[in-house]
């Protein structure tokens, strides 16, 4: 604290200059402590996945060595097909979330008075605050053969037979992903729309630009960094949240998270680490591409 604020008090001596020198030296480290913690227990463990993934598998654990067996095990088996197909469905979820959620962010920024905007966005925190696992599990009685959706549709006379494709299928997983991650595209879209001043809408109206061109040529380029960050979040979580395919998916619905947790249950730790390393590589390259294309630091402007 002392060293941080003494930046601000330029010229004069810091008031508490007489305190013990060891204390003065300690204070800046207190502020760095959380970062050191994050490096030790987040950055290093994530980087170490690459190292552990080339270790030799033993009966119950692993031992230091160098083998690419885990990667072979991943890339030359059904796991790769499953991984790629989960990428496809994750991408579909991203598109659906964007189409359903982003207009809400635009609407809130454009048509709701500034003071009330945050409160409206708070509405989307409500579902997000209920445990994701419980929301996903709760989808079972909703989508089941005799569940809420089917019984409602049948009572309305819209269908004669229950729709069984809603659960234990790829459709079920996509529905689960959309319902779990939709709030995130609203939040990130809301932050992204900070980059689109309100007068833009009036300028577009005055120039007689239609809603589609306004969206394509003005809003999209300005809000791109935020939209991209939100989409990466949904995409990566669609690949990595094991419980979605585990609870809602059927045959063939396996994503990276499920491969990793199944490997851990089977005590194949190097394989689990290889999957984690592949996921981290996917995430970092997506973020890198996004940064090159849109300069992701722009999202942080409202924060600094």
């Amino acid at each position, binding site marked *: 604290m002392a060293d941080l604020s003494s930046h601000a008090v330029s010229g004069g001596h810091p008031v508490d200059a007489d305190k013990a020198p060891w204390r003065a030296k300690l204070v800046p480290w207190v502020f760095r402590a959380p970062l050191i913690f994050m490096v030790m227990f987040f950055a290093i463990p994530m980087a170490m996945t690459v190292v552990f993934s080339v270790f030799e598998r033993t009966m119950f654990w692993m031992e230091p060595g160098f083998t690419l067996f885990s990667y072979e095990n991943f890339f030359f088996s059904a796991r790769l097909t499953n991984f790629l197909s989960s990428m496809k469905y994750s991408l579909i979820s991203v598109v659906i979330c964007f189409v359903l959620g982003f207009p809400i962010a635009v609407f809130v920024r454009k048509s709701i008075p500034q003071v009330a905007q945050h409160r409206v966005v708070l509405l989307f925190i409500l579902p997000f605050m209920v445990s994701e696992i419980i929301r996903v*599990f709760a989808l079972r009685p909703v989508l089941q053969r005799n569940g809420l959706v089917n019984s409602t549709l049948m009572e309305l006379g819209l269908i004669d037979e229950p729709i069984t494709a809603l659960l234990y299928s790829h459709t079920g997983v996509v529905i689960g992903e959309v319902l779990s991650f939709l709030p995130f595209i609203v939040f990130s879209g809301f932050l992204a729309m900070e980059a689109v001043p309100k007068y833009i809408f009036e300028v577009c109206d005055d120039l007689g630009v239609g809603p589609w061109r306004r969206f394509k040529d003005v809003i999209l380029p300005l809000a791109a960094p935020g939209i991209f960050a939100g989409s990466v979040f949904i995409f990566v979580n669609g690949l990595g949240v094991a419980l979605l395919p585990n609870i809602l998916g059927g045959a063939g619905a396996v994503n990276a998270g499920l491969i990793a947790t199944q490997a851990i249950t089977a005590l194949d730790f190097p394989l689990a680490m290889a999957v984690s390393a592949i996921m981290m590589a996917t995430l970092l390259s997506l973020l890198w591409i996004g940064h090159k294309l849109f300069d992701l630091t722009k999202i942080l402007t409202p924060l600094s």
Partner: protein
Amino acid sequence: MNDYDNIWLHRLKWAYLLLVVLTLMTPVIYVMYVSFNANGFGANEYVFTLEWYGLIFSDELLIGALGWTVILALVVTVVAVPMALLSAKYYKAADNKLFPIFLLLSPLFVPPDILGSALLVFFKNLNLVFIWLGDQIGTSLFDSWFRLSFLTATIGLIIYTIPYSFVVILITMGRYRTEQTEAARACGANGWRAFWDIEFPQIRAGVFSACAFTVILVFNEYTRTSLLKGGFDTFTTVLISQMLNTGMSPQSYAMSAMVSFVAIAVIGSIILFTMLRAESLGRIARAKAEPVMS
């Protein structure tokens, strides 16, 4: 909204927004509805009962798990929120902002199962290293430091919750004007006093929201907790293992509903409190602005 807009279109958009929120909440509301039914899910007859909730509170395993969950949530909050506050202060003053922000926000992007697995293997290896180090100097003092335990679960959950607290605190700090700290310092206050008496009261709302967020996130979390915990169970791990092993029982509906009620109550009271506070502050401001009539 401007005058050229169609009022009905505006209402339609509002209706869509509320419909989306309702759709997101439907599964939860449906579970709550089923949890009060004496006949359970799918029955033809609906009879209101609190029987299933009674079962939760007579189940010792669940009460024990509830205890662990509360302790875990409190410990993580007490450690993670001050850490987030320190990082936010550090970030504000830092010259190179990219590194801290990347480090503090990237846990958001790492899926739960991946973070959990990576930390699990890391801790198991760290534990082996510590045991080996202990053997070298002839002590068994380090043997259980990083065995999977309450500590490892706490570390995993701190990493998970720090980004949320950090962002919430940073946003409230955005409204604070640092000249006030400078003024306090110039008047002779030391760093701590300037923070505690001047800055903290202004960012208090953000810090409390961060606490509430952290408690709810820890309470709800399943994947990371279940991978990193040692020999204890939290509410969600018991619930999910029951659901995965025996399917949804009436009791598991009641448990899910209860967790949701707690979360909604906490966040609902925060929203209500903020709105009431804004209202009363507004009233005070209006009262002050009114001319004195005598």
